[in-house]
């Protein structure tokens, strides 16, 4: 009986662990709508474009007030990029960089430059913001930064609303 319990728990546990909510891609409008609902004011929602080779996305967690997920590279195991959509972000003292979407502003705060390149990239737009916390080994960090920035797209809420209405007949606003 004990063996049965152990085996079944492990089996079901493994089964459950393998069923994880995937991070929404920019074409999975149903899932993306949930991200939009988490921060109803946000004019953009982050979604996965094309993941570069060696990158994986996991830990999707959308709830009222925020959405989070992580991106992990096989060249930076143990230090995933933590992505979060929030209603507001504090960018005081951050350095402005080139914006990643029309109407958005992008800021960078570096916590460390060497030996690790670590900090937070923040996209600020009307009604919300997306933060990306990164921590890479110096050296490969230039390629890694480019890759994760390219992997995440800011999808316009207006466009998403049209798609959701076309599919579900409801408007996410």
């Amino acid at each position, binding site marked *: *009986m*004990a*063996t049965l*319990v*152990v*085996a*079944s*728990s*492990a089996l*079901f*546990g*493994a*089964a*459950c*662990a393998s*069923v*994880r*909510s*995937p991070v929404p891609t920019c074409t*999975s409008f*149903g*899932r993306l*709508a*949930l991200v939009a*609902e988490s921060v109803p004011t946000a004019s953009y929602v982050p979604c996965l474009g094309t993941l570069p080779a060696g990158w994986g996305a996991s830990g999707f*967690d*959308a*709830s*009222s*007030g925020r959405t989070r997920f992580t991106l992990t590279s096989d060249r930076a195991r143990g230090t995933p990029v933590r992505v979060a959509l929030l209603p507001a972000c504090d960018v005081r003292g951050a350095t402005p960089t080139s914006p990643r979407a029309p109407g958005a502003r992008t800021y960078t705060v570096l916590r460390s430059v060497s030996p690790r390149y670590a900090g937070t990239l923040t996209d600020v737009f009307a009604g919300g913001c997306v933060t990306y916390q990164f921590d890479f080994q110096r050296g490969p960090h230039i390629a890694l930064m480019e890759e994760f920035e390219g992997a995440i797209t800011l999808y316009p809420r207006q466009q998403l609303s049209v798609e*959701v209405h076309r*599919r*579900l*007949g*409801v*408007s*996410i*606003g």
Partner: protein
Amino acid sequence: MLAVTAALWAALLFGPTLRAVTDVDTTVLRVVAHTRTAALTSVMRAVDHVGSAAVVRVVAWATIAALLACRRFPHLIAYLAALLAVSVIETVVAVHVARIRPVGVAILAPWSGYAHPSRPVAGVAVLLVGAVHTLVPAPWRRRAAVTSAVALACLGLARLYLAVDHPTDVLAGVALGWAVPALLYAFATPDESFPVTYGYRPRAHLDIGGARGQAIRGALDQQLGIHVTSVEPFGLGGSAGSTPLLITGRRRERDEEVAVFAKLYARNHVRSDRLYKLARSIRYGRLEDELPFSSVRRLAEYEDHLLRLFRDLGLPTPEPYGLVEISPEREYLLVMEFFAGAAELGDAPLGEGEIDQGLAIVRTMWDAGVAHRDIKPSNLLVRDGGVVLIDVAFAAVRPTPWRQAVDLANMMLTLALVSSAEQVYRRALRVFTPDDIAEAFAASRGVTVPAQLKARLHADGRRLDDAFRALAPTRAPVAVQRWTVRRVTSTIGVAAVITGAVWAASVYARSAGLL
């Protein structure tokens, strides 16, 4: 209910049907939203808090603790399985359906994850059904189920009022959290086999009412020709390996009233025997290195055989009347003579005649090559000046001389409890040599003395074992090889199972949402 829910899940996977269901859901939510007031919203938020993950976790752990405290392990396993099953199904459905939260109506409460099925509703439902089936006794269950259903309905209504879930999300949550566990409990822990009762009752002792009681009466009538008038538990305190019963009735063949003693054996006794022997072999090594029984039938057959063997050897043991099959391979009743008016040895002062009879029993066993292996006060009865030996379940044929020596030591200690070491030693010399007695007490040590006898010796306080050793010739303690390959492998195996169980428990707790 489950079929409707499965159909709903299928509908939610396709665009046109999803759109139709969402239309209906949104219409209902809009109607409900018209009833919103500030005061009602506060109440509904408070009700919704009952379904929060923290509350669900606390209640789940409290139920687990209660089931552990009550040693209700079959219910506990079913409860854990229900939590896990609901959690897994819920996760799979949520990921595949990927339904968004209601739109078009303001959401008034916090939420997390996909809307379908409603996780808080399913979580509370599984807790309520679990409590009803594992903690509430059958007579009160219907009332508890109705109360739980009302509580769940309040939560569902609050979720709709706050527009956190669609109506179909709530319905799916109810179906999943209520129907799946209810089916599981009905299948795994039916009340006939696993009744929920309170008050102390040793696990070995089965309920003999209801269907089992009827089966016992029918089987005794058909197989032994005894028309049963009453079946009562008897001597529960002295038995932990079976359910002892006193059965009275009329024997049809001779048309006479009879009272028989019976031991009811079931699968849980075989499991207990297996665990008991494993624990003993790990704790004591070769002292108790023996193989467990493979089935209930074998366990009952073995004791029946030994009863007949002991009778054939002329030992004063109960006359076996036969083995009665209650349920094939599941439950058997071993029926034997009942010693009416017999008293446990020690309940009355002992004369030399009884001491001699006790010692003669051991002598006969030595000569015949058998050992009782469980000689203690509750297994020695006195009736009409004669000593009788009961409970031969642990007896062995062709035991080691060491085991036979232990039988002698335990008999002498038992007899000395109601007389004196000097008197018993003096009478023992009539049938045993001083060397036999010296060897018996050289072999005797804490682990060889049955628990009941050990407790009586401790309460007696005369240090009877030392008294016997002082009377007998000096003999070095018998060394017993405790470490065997089996003990080592059993110990490693048990350690591995415990490690695996801890790992599985942590995986389980994460999967079932208990962490």
